[in-house]
């Protein structure tokens, strides 16, 4: 089981964490939304919860609860640019289908 970050993503996460001045790392999760879909959650992590799994890649700690890990295992987090917009992308091998813009998905 693993979650990885591309160099671009790791670089940005480090910048954002440094700017924030605190935080253990990055918390990734999924939450249910819509009728049958899942949505990604990407947050700063200030504390570990019981059962959390911690991965370290590119010297960034990625924290994930075991329930979300079922949906996210094997995911590579990337950082990209589309026109003026930029942000993080989940390259998630578990996804079978996603909504038009890719914000929610099903497995």
């Amino acid at each position, binding site marked *: 089981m693993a979650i990885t970050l591309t160099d671009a993503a790791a670089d*940005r*996460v480090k*910048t*954002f964490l440094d*700017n*924030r001045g605190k935080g253990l790392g*990055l*918390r990734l999760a999924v*939450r*249910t*939304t*819509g*009728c*049958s*879909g899942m*949505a*990604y*959650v*990407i*947050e*700063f*992590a*200030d504390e570990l*919860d*019981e*059962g959390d799994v911690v991965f370290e890649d590119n010297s960034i700690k990625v924290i994930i*609860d*075991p*329930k979300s*890990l*079922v*949906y996210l295992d094997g995911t590579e987090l990337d950082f*990209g*640019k*589309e*026109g*003026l*917009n*930029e*942000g*993080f*992308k*989940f390259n998630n091998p578990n996804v079978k289908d*996603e*909504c038009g*813009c*890719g*914000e*929610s998905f099903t*497995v």
Partner: protein
Amino acid sequence: MALLQISEPGQSTAPHQHRLAAGIDLGTTNSLVATIKSGLASVLPDDQGEVIFPSVVRYGKDGVAAIGKAARDQASEDPYNTISSVKRLIGLSAEDITESSAGMMFKLEKTDSSVPRIATDAGAKTAIEVSADILRALRTRAELSLGGELTGVVVTVPAYFDDTQRQATKDAAKLAGLNVYRLVNEPTAAAIAYGLDRADADSTIAVYDLGGGTFDISILKLEKGVFEVLSTAGDTALGGDDIDNAIVDWVVAQHGVEVGGNAGLQRTLLDQARVVKHALSTNDQAQFSIQHGELSINSTVSLETFNSLVAELIQNTLKSCRNALRQAKLKKNQIDNVVMVGGSTRVPAVRAAVSEFFEREVLTDINPDEVVAIGAALQADVLAGNKPDSDMLLLDVIPLSLGIETHGGLVEQIIPRNTTIPAARAQEFTTYKDGQTAMALHVVQGERDLVRDCRSLGRFELRGFNPVVAGQARIQVTFQVDADGLLTVSAVERDSGVQAEVQIKPSYGLRDSEIESMIRDSMTNAQQDVAARMLQEQRVEAERAVEALDAAMAKDADEFLDENEKQKIVDAREAVVQSSTATDADSIKSALRVLEKVSEVYVSRRMNASIGEAMKGKTIDSYEKQDSPT
């Protein structure tokens, strides 16, 4: 694939419901828009990488012909249709303007209205409309950059703006389709950018703002997290442009050049003066060299010369500082922080003089052009609800997720655990059956996927809405947890407006150990829960398909299907019903797929028939006749 930003813990939003906020510094000469991405405040550039947006609009016959840098660059070609410095007019009446507009490139329309209108090729424009065009351009830039519609903005205004000017600015934002959370004073925004609002103790702050064409000094008092403007002073015709002019005057005098009315030469001289000014922010001397027709000037400007040229200007600003202090009834040494704003505060002599005047270090870390927009963005981010603004409010969190039961005994989480309260989240649901006129809502708490594994908090019903086809009704369910932890769940059907609500105290009777074990269960049962959810979703899908099929078959199976075809569908339907009692999601899925396949012919015949029905008795001719005028 959507591009996501990192949220603060517990502040994630549902897809397509991001609370995108921006701060806008609507300036006299230049405007900027800033936002917070993944916790980092930044000013947003255009596709050329330019962050500064000149507050200039050029109008043509069809409306806005050019805006921002393009409009500024074309100003000399079309001066009367190119509106700049409109901020000087906003909220003023026609009488207010006559004197102060001297030297401004406006043709004012003569009207009976007290609101002045500027004559342009696109018609008479009020200052509000021109400002709205600028704001609209900034809004577009922000929305492209954030990848979605803005939820709200904070717009900054000068501290000395009166109520009419503030209202006019707000109206301009509204006209630009922006939701204004709040107007914030420019000096206050600058102080927020430096985090001075988070100081533990009460303090006084001086904000020294030397822009391109205006100078403002404001004295602020921060008390219990609230800023109060104690006094303002300044000069609306003093700024960086005066420094440029001083350099040009010096060079012209040195070389005995006759500028006269030569606008082209004047422009070249001023452009070079600006280059020299910028160079002298970091170097001890700079080269003033131009080539204009026959004329060639090459002159070294030393920092010493430059400082003597700006000395008078600086003294004038310090006079205003003294004024402001006097009005605020404060002594220089009672000022705790001095914030520097505006591009002209990059001039080392300005920094040194202000630092000496207030007898302390001045704050210059943040880009002085951007600091106001950044403060506005920080404020907008808090007001949009993206920060767990724990410094301002005593906050609590929701210990377990709150949600609602959906068809098939599944839980739909509305407010995830660890969300800070007060909190409000809304989600839209729809009906499951044709003609449904009521809905039972079951509010549950917990981390598990199935209702039976969660804690039931309460039930209520929404009755009496209009019967429509399944999936067409729009029922908005809102969860609201107030500062005391009281949960109110309300539901409203959008078309009929029918509503109902229930109040619950979610943490009532729950001990910490129980909360802990509920969370732990959800982790240890993660795999089973995922499987259970998928199974349940497939079952619901199967049920829905069978129900729709039965309804159709009862109506017109004999009309469209022969016995053989009918039998095939009935068999496939039976297989789906059989499989849905099993505990394997995949077998339901494949049975459903078979049913879909064998029903295809039936579905397409029904579709064709219904189109035929709609056109029955009409020929193509009759359609054409109806359309053409007689």
